[in-house]
């Protein structure tokens, strides 16, 4: 029996779902291996019970709390995918402002038609079974996690900082080029794709389990960043990782 799979979107850009659809080469094998019963971005049919539910996006409305609880009831395995779902991600930047101001800024006159609550990661609303981080998720990681679930294994969660793959890939460290980076405290598994492509790590995969925040602050400070810059930098994806970065 092929496992029944649902893919759901909450507050996000749906880029992570697009990454699933971007697995073009593997798509025939994916469809053969999985019974995809719900996937709003890709199809109209909709089933109601799931062996695996992939959840894209953060939770930022009361109605989303209700939907999430319903999905949890109907799914055996729940996996948040992407920075929005795993960390709250960029959505949480709004939490620094009063909600009515946020609504007005976004919808102007029409604000009264909408409601919103402070954004939060999926795990703040329902229990989840695994995290697949990244903004967006890494295609290869999605395929690997599906393989491991099909084989009946607990998926492997990388916990080494981005620096490891960055160095192993032969990159010149951006600190040698006068730039700064969150690689030393960010969960690897993306092959340091941003540094390899000429940018820096912004921390989209979230923090490793035991990040050395103190040391990271020190290296950013000695690279010339103010405390305010450092906080901004960190808050981009990780502001909802409360208590870790203050």
């Amino acid at each position, binding site marked *: 029996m092929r496992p029944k799979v649902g893919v759901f979107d909450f507050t996000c850009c749906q880029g992570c779902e697009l990454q699933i659809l971007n697995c073009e080469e*593997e798509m025939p*094998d*994916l469809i*053969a*291996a999985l019974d995809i019963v719900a996937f709003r971005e890709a199809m109209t049919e909709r089933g109601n019970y799931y062996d695996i539910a992939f959840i894209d996006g953060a939770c930022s409305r009361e109605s989303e709390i209700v939907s999430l609880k319903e999905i949890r009831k109907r799914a055996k395995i729940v996996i948040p995918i992407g920075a929005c779902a795993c960390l709250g991600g960029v959505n949480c930047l709004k939490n620094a402002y009063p909600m009515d101001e946020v609504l007005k800024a976004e919808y102007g006159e029409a604000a009264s038609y909408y409601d919103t609550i402070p954004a939060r990661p999926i795990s703040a609303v329902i229990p989840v079974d695994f995290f697949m981080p990244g903004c967006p998720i890494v295609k290869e990681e999605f*395929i*690997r996690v*599906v*393989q491991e679930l*099909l*084989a009946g294994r607990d998926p*492997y969660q990388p*916990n*080494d*900082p981005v*620096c*490891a793959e960055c*160095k*192993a*890939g*032969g*990159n*010149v*460290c951006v*600190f*040698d*080029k006068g730039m700064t980076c969150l*690689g*030393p*405290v960010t969960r690897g598994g993306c092959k340091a794709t941003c540094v390899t492509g000429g940018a820096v790590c912004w921390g989209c995969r979230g923090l*490793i*389990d*035991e*990040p*050395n925040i103190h*040391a*990271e602050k*020190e*290296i950013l400070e000695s690279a010339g960043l103010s405390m305010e810059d450092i906080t901004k930098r960190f808050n981009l994806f990780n502001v909802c990782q409360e208590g870790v970065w203050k």
Partner: protein
Amino acid sequence: MPIVTTLKADFYSSVQNMIHENEVYGVKRKTPSFAFDKLCATQELCLDYDITVLPPNQYLLPPTDPLITFNLSPEVSIRSKVESRATIILGIHAYDLHAIKLLDAVFTGNLVDVNYQARRSATAIIGVDCLNPWLYSFAASMGTALPPSIFDLWLTDLGGEYLIEVGSSRGQDLSKRYLKTKSARKVQIRQRDKFRQDSLNRYQLSLDRSAQEIPEILDKAWKNPLWEELGEKCFSCGSCTMVCPTCVCFDVRDKITLNLKRGERYRLGDSCMFDAFDKVASGENFRPTGTDRLRHRLYRKGKYMLERWGELGCVGCGRCVHACLVDIASPVYAYNRLVKEATQWPSA
């Protein structure tokens, strides 16, 4: 084995021919540093470099290295996968060759690793003396600034020409096939020796004691507070090991197709600086803190590898010194500090 010379201009046209007929990995510019990479044209080659971002180990131990392929259905079958291709590494420095000597001991000593061995024996090594050492290197005091005799050809830049020492019959063949040489005169060999001697004096970092004393220094250092002082800054990022030419640790993982019918088992680089490295199935971690792991790494470099494989685990290339963003990875700094404090903190 003979010692010959070749004009630089001739040498670079020889390299073009070499590239034409072989897979040649040489040193190229990678601003602001240098890197080993596949050579496509002789102009890309930079033999006057200070350091490469990564050592050339990647050609002997690729970052991901398939070991076996297997079928799970309809029948279970397993096949070993050994990949190797005739390869030339061009421009290796002496410290990196000392590291390969250690890899040889690890992978072709008592236990032969067939994947390593196949690649190693298919790889010709053409090295070059490092006459202008890197700011962070301390190879001279590790005794690794001059090449061990496991090269095929070894170059020294004499200005207008290269002095070339032939180190093996494979080197002899390469020389015959590609190089336009004259036998070296005594005065040229003396000039090489002087250039080498001068280069040894140009290293900025050095050990305060001889490298042979490191194990003894470490014997008395287990409880030194230095480890805590350095370790609390550690990111456990593994940068220091990823760039290290003597690091040999790997993890083994499986990759299975979505239909669960076929798969591949491969290895990939691991690091004793990672939090998960010492985690065992029961969930315990026998080196749970950055401090434990940092101490372990510096014992491994300065003592354990020597005891097990007969070579020190650090060749003084300096890559980790530079790679560590919090300046705690340097073996030379740690060993010198321990010497200084030996009187204050007697044995464990």
